[in-house]
């Protein structure tokens, strides 16, 4: 069974204080690893898909990286509008569903 563990559960940052979120996963064969952002009362919003170890993707202040066992979401010089819950999910080869972690709630103070 696919497993996704995210850490920390919560992260409080000062504006401009860079940090990283961790997503550890176990999957029989990785088809894709997905990062989503979820704001309160909203559905998850797609950020990135990573397919193979060594791959990196960037969007504004966010950068996602992937190894064979984990993924990191780096937030560089965060702003208050980066406050959200960040979800990691994996999809196994031959499967169609995504298995999600419990998320990391990031709060950025001005």
């Amino acid at each position, binding site marked *: 069974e696919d497993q996704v563990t995210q850490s920390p559960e919560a992260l409080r940052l000062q504006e401009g204080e860079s940090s990283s979120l961790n997503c550890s996963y176990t999957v029989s064969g990785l088809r894709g690893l997905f990062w989503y952002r979820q704001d309160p009362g909203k*559905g998850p919003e*797609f950020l990135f898909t990573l397919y193979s170890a060594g791959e990196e993707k960037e969007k504004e202040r966010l950068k996602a990286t992937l190894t064979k066992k984990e993924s990191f979401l780096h937030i560089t010089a965060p702003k208050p509008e980066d406050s959200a819950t960040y979800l990691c999910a994996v999809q196994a080869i031959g499967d169609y569903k995504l298995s*999600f972690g419990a998320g990391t709630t990031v709060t950025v103070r001005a």
Partner: protein
Amino acid sequence: GAGVSQSPSNKVTEKGKDVELRCDPISGHTALYWYRQRLGQGLEFLIYFQGNSAPDKSGLPSDRFSAERTGESVSTLTIQRTQQEDSAVYLCASSVTGGNSPLHFGNGTRLTVT
């Protein structure tokens, strides 16, 4: 273009009643998913549709839960004889093909069973 639309946005029902939740996916998306999110928890997979067929129903928690999709478009999730543990946000998502194309989520239906 329009995103995934879910209705109602909120539903309060009494224990033992049946409820229907609706999802309108993005036009042209062949894959449709239902997930459940309990307070403070991650997303729990319920069912996956490819077209009007459901090749993976493995996440449905009990036979009180059922879902259908018609016209390769609208989907309805039905919960019969609701229980308090059914209280959660029910999220619908669609994707272009159901392969590794990203899922696009609606804002969910918040179900409260009293």
